[in-house]
């Protein structure tokens, strides 16, 4: 008797456990993609309070004025005020860096990829924020050594882009190809090597610049961030009581 009661009890418990763990089947779905605006929700006050100290310290530094620009600079193709400014700046700073540290690597060309310039520079006061918006990435300044063939391939790539950010070189574009390539005012020579100062992103083949990876005959990484170099350069100009500026000089032209 007792045994039967016990088994019945077990059975009941078993059934209870089973019915308490139902299988679920998915029977419907409803979806919506919602813009995150004031209509969706107010800002969560706890999280806003958590963000505030970071925001304050960030905005204080970002609002710092580092210099003045005579003109508004926008990137453009085949050449542009911003692209020329950035490439000229990188060439000047690259030459200065090498003169001090590695005279044998003095760059003849600077390349700033068009896609890497993420914003424009306004006329008037330039703040740290402007430079962060222009160059948000943590790229560093690097040096790549190319031979005649490498330079030709590199410049032809710029021509196929319809122009780009370059300094130290001049060329025309005809049917997507580079013609009359001049580096430091001279035609490029067989047997001669040319150092290009650029950023590590393109130097490792980014933006379809494979030539910097496959055609390189030498490489050096400065470990200096491009953004820090830009900020330092504009501060230096400001200390000299001058304003930054740029001009179009026909370095890249259509034939």
């Amino acid at each position: 008797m007792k045994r039967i009661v016990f088994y019945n009890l077990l059975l009941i418990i078993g059934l209870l456990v089973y019915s308490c763990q139902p299988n679920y089947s998915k029977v419907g779905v409803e979806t919506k993609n919602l813009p995150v605006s004031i209509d969706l929700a107010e800002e969560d006050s706890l999280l806003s309070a958590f963000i505030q100290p970071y925001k304050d310290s960030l905005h204080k530094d970002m609002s710092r004025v580092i210099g003045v620009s005579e003109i508004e600079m926008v990137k453009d193709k085949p050449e542009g005020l911003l692209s020329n400014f950035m490439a000229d700046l990188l060439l000047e700073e690259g030459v200065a860096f090498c003169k001090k540290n590695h005279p044998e690597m003095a760059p003849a060309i600077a390349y700033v990829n068009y896609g890497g310039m993420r914003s424009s520079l306004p006329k008037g006061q330039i703040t740290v924020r402007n430079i962060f918006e222009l160059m948000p990435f943590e790229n560093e300044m690097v040096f790549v050594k190319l031979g005649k063939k490498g330079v030709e391939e590199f410049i032809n790539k710029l021509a196929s882009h319809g122009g780009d950010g370059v300094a130290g070189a001049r060329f025309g574009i005809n049917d997507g190809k580079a013609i009359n390539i001049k580096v430091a005012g001279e035609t490029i020579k067989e047997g001669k090597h040319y150092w290009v100062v650029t950023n590590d992103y393109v130097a490792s083949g980014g933006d379809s610049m494979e030539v910097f990876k496959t055609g390189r005959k030498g490489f050096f990484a400065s470990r200096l961030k491009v953004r820090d170099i830009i900020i330092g350069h504009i501060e230096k100009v400001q200390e000299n009581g001058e304003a930054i500026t740029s001009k179009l000089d026909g370095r890249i032209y259509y034939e």
Partner: protein
Amino acid sequence: MGGSIMNRRHFIKNILAGGTGLYMGAAPFSLLAKEGHKVVTIIHTNDLHCHIEPFSSSREDMDGKGGIARIAAYAKHVRAENPNTLLLDAGDMFQGTPYFNYFKGEVILKTMGQAGYDAGTIGNHEFDNGLEGILNALPHASFPLVSSNYDFKDTMLNGLFPRFKIFEKSGILIGVYGLGIELKGLVNENNYGNTIYNDPLKVALEMETFLKKEMNCHLVVCLSHLGHSYEGKIISDLVIGKETSHTNLVIGGHTHSYLKEPVQVKNKKGEMVLVNQAWWGGLMVGHIDFVFEAGSGRKSSIFANKLNG
């Protein structure tokens, strides 16, 4: 009472129609619960790119929009209505505003944790400060970053990323796996070192079978940073949706795709899979309600047919 029944009918009708009609208030959840239905809500973002604050932009569709604190408030509100809610992200949390340049991954991961994110995955921009950048930032994440196809065994990140995560919400098991994009050619080699990239589709098939068949998950979600779709045969969120059998939802990222509603594709078994992406920068959130019915394992005929249709 009559009104409540009306609400419920209206809700079910929307489900049947597969429509995106809005329903208001908490009524459907409590009513559905009473009748053995349960709702799992998934809210998701992608490519936040350190957009902690709302955008200030010259573009009208962006200016004043976004902001983690707003996403947090929305998630809180939804969770209060339905505790069976998950907040997920599909990668590229890093890079894009000075918050990243100044504080590396710290502020974005901390704020996402505070906002209640349940899981995320690794996007290519997570590598922007190298493996060390990820290693240093990771302690600030209170939520797991699920990565199934990157193998970090030969790197300093060995053992830090779960291959899957299972969430239990009122008896419903939700399995989540994560797919990352090929880093070669996209990320500076020095920044990913010896990270091994495994074929996303192969890994997806392995993960979904494991989650569905071995772990008995009721819902399988893929967090994908592969990108929505590409020309040619390049692996993408859509390919994962079409070529798998047990994945119910692919939450995508990388291509910053603006979708008015999730794309529906048919999987290997001919069943409907949702493939979604919520633009970028926290300018949009995806909100998906999956309705479940308790039963003895057999699918409820009317609804199941519709879902599989």
